[in-house]
């Protein structure tokens, strides 16, 4: 099982929070799960972008 994060760079940790300190990383660590980041795009301009953090199996 792992935590999979979908969102733009604002929330995956490329901009804003320091590496490993985005809420996605912190939350996944509370569950003891590895986190996979999936940036919707390379900037902060994802239209109607919503960050979704899911916990699921392979």
């Amino acid at each position, binding site marked *: *099982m792992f935590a999979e994060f979908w969102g733009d760079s604002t929330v995956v940790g490329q901009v*804003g929070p320091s590496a490993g300190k*985005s809420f996605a990383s*912190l939350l996944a660590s509370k*569950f003891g799960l590895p986190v996979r980041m999936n940036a919707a795009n390379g900037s902060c301009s994802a239209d*109607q972008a919503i960050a*979704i953090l899911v*916990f*699921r199996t392979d």
Partner: protein
Amino acid sequence: MSFAPTSISVILEGVNDTQRYFTPAQHAYFKGFYAELLSRLSYLSRVSCRDAGMVKTGAWANTQPGWSEGCSSNTAGSTASAVLKGRTFLVGTTLQDYFGSPVPGVAEVRVDGDLVGAYSSNGQGMPTAHNTFAPAAFRFPGKEEGEYTVEVKVISGFIYLEYLLGSEQPQGEKIFALTPTRTYQPSDNGAMSTALGIIVKQLVLDFQADGRDVHLVDVAAKQTPAHVTADLIHLNDAFNKIIADDVFAAYMSALPPPVFTETICYESEGKGYMGIGGRMVQVYP
């Protein structure tokens, strides 16, 4: 150990994204889009416009976007209906802007012949990437819990229909919906995130009323100017920690009482469990 394909979803809309919804119409697009997210995550089944279970009359054609599973009609009087169980019903649609020149339309929604509301596929001015199409969902009250024929009838213009679904069905994912955060740039007085937060709170109540496993985490209420980076836009480390702490606390409080055991994990009667901090907690019912 057994888990649902996806057990938990956390939804955060904030910072740059919430700066895109200025007008009341755009707030309505946000509501439709967010409802669509909750719908997709919390309901396991739906009858798409292209399914055999959708009975259509008049003229319908498949919708253009590649992600669409729906159809559209610009022939007044065309109908699409499905037999669904529940006491509330969701209509999934595609909003269209057509680069600023949509063909606004209206469709009526009936439950066993009784008019319960109407919707439009007009997405003029919506803040999507290509100003053409965007998914949205609308919720309609029905009657007592039961099985009904839900019908969409084209009254005018272009109408898009992705799917119909009823509220009586197994749980989907456990969802944590976070209130939208804001920037602290001079142009942002916080009104937009506040308005969108009201929408999120109401949608959570609506979906809870329909029996969905949806939980509000009001992180926006804790945000201060000290919680953004030097650009006054992005959430800093301190606030990311607050979000993680609050979602985790909401997750723990949303669970049934933990079962203490030394076993790491087990599966019983279709229920999934996982070990957290030496405790066993139910992951999904």
